[in-house]
């Protein structure tokens, strides 16, 4: 562990995702997501992690730094810039054709190697991404890094070389803590992410974005499509749900009657 009174290197993982407001469509032939015309954005969940990192840095006020890390094609630069405009100090991008098609495991291997190379004291992640929605990466990363993983944090404090978080549970929360270095996934209840102001946006242009390829990380494991441990074997489109009935109810009693009748037909009652 690093000495107690010492600036921290905080690292935030960020991901590029298709715009969440766009209605997603599937190409009927290729069964793939239609990406043309759909903008890509910074994964909304990651903004909570960035905000949490910036707040910690401001609170510590001891020269601690915030670095964003993204495994993304070169087009992801815009998204990384957004994090820099919010106030992150610098960025690292792992852009390599060889990572395309990585499954969860492959992604965790690459990101863990990149995080190790950065020597971070605290790693913050979103709880999930809006495109994959698995929520499994934080746990995998913590395990791969061999550091404590504190997931679903809605409150994060650093003191005496330890991180303490309020971790959301199904019906409340628990307080858990661990020595640094550690990984924390941040929920949307943690904060309200700031907007980048003009100064931030201008300043971001001067900040360093370091580009790394797999070779720079000294990775030996095969990642990408070939290395996937969970291999996509089929993509099908489900039967479309037809438009149902729309019935006007004169009053509450009639509305209830219509629903009960429907539920009886469907054997719910």
């Amino acid at each position, binding site marked *: 562990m690093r000495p107690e009174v010492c600036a921290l290197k905080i690292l935030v993982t960020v991901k590029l995702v298709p715009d969440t407001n766009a209605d997603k469509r599937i190409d009927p032939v290729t069964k793939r997501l239609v990406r043309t015309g759909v903008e890509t954005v910074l994964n909304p969940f990651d903004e909570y992690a960035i905000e949490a990192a910036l707040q910690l840095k401001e609170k510590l006020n001891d020269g601690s730094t915030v670095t964003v890390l993204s495994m993304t094609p070169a087009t992801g630069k815009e998204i990384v810039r957004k994090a820099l405009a919010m106030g992150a100090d610098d960025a690292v991008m792992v852009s390599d054709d060889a990572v395309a098609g990585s499954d969860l495991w492959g992604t965790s291997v690459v990101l863990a190697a990149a995080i190790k190379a950065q020597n971070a004291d605290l790693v913050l992640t979103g709880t999930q991404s809006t495109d994959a929605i698995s929520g499994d*990466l934080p746990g995998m990363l913590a395990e791969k890094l061999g550091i404590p993983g504190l997931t679903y944090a809605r409150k994060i404090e650093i003191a005496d070389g330890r991180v303490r978080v309020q971790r959301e549970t199904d019906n409340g929360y*628990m307080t858990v803590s661990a020595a640094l270095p550690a990984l924390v996934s941040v929920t949307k209840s943690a904060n309200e992410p700031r907007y980048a102001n003009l100064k931030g946006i201008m300043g971001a242009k001067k900040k360093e974005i370091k580009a790394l390829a797999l070779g720079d990380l000294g990775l030996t494991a095969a990642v990408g499509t070939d290395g996937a441990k969970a291999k996509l074997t089929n993509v099908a489109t489900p039967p479309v749900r037809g438009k149902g009935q729309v019935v006007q109810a004169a009053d509450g009693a009639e509305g209830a009657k*219509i629903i009960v009748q429907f539920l009886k037909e469907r054997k719910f009652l």
Partner: protein
Amino acid sequence: MIQNVIAFVEHKHGTVRRVSFEAATQARALADKLGGKVHAVVVGDGAQTAAEALKKYPVDQIHVSDDTRFLENAVDALETVAKAAGNGLVLVGNTMLGRDVGSRFAARVDCGMNADVVDFTTDGGIAAVMPKLGGLVITTCALDGDFGVAAIRPNVFSAKETSGAGEIVQIPSSGKASAITVEDEVEEAAAELGVEEASVVVSGGRGMGGPEPFTTILKDLADAFGGAVGASRAAVDAGWVSHGHQVGQTGKTVSPPLYIAVGISGAIQHKVGMRTSETIVAINKDANAPIAEFADLLVVGDAFAIVPELANAVRDAKAAHA
């Protein structure tokens, strides 16, 4: 090649979560097809009690560990059992704890993991079936190698008790110190049935106008069904109900047999969290609300008039059956 199936059992002081019974039941079906054995892994405070409950399910061996370390105990126990079995598919619930435990195990043994699994195929090895992109596509992923993890969506697989009495086996204590300290645990709400587990979800949206309906009329309707209360993000953001109830892209994905959306317009981000529900009923003032496009039944009217009447009618119908 995976042949054995290992169900990770989630419980609270010995009370087992329904999704874990579903995992145990599904584990048997898979192991029979793959020609392997079924193991269950139960750890922590109350593990012995939970293991007894598991005896009613078709499990060959129930591995019990009293290790109370947070998360690490589960991953260590799964590793021990999986490695002793030589191969195995670990089934966890697609829940906060299940995902944490499953993902750490997957990284520990370097295996694939599939989240939000709703079905399996077993021809030529095990593969998991998952809706992606909010149900727009159904993908199938083969789990290569000796180990794999599948997080199963609650309420999709059935839980069936059998006479099968699993043998209880003790996992020796690892004696390891915990890296994570649990300082306290606070329950803010009474332990309610979560939206992910309920077979009927009654969700309220902005149309509810305030917090009260969530604890009165919506709760009452959900109770009449033995179900749970859900919510749209608009209702959660307004502070009317806690985030744990939120259904949708940034909330929970649910697929109950019956979903009732009350005063919810059916925005795309809400839709992706519930569109795979078997039957969708909506109550909305507006006949042209987007939810009309995917609800099986939209009753146009005032929720405040309809919902209390409906709760009574449901109770009457259920009483008539009893």
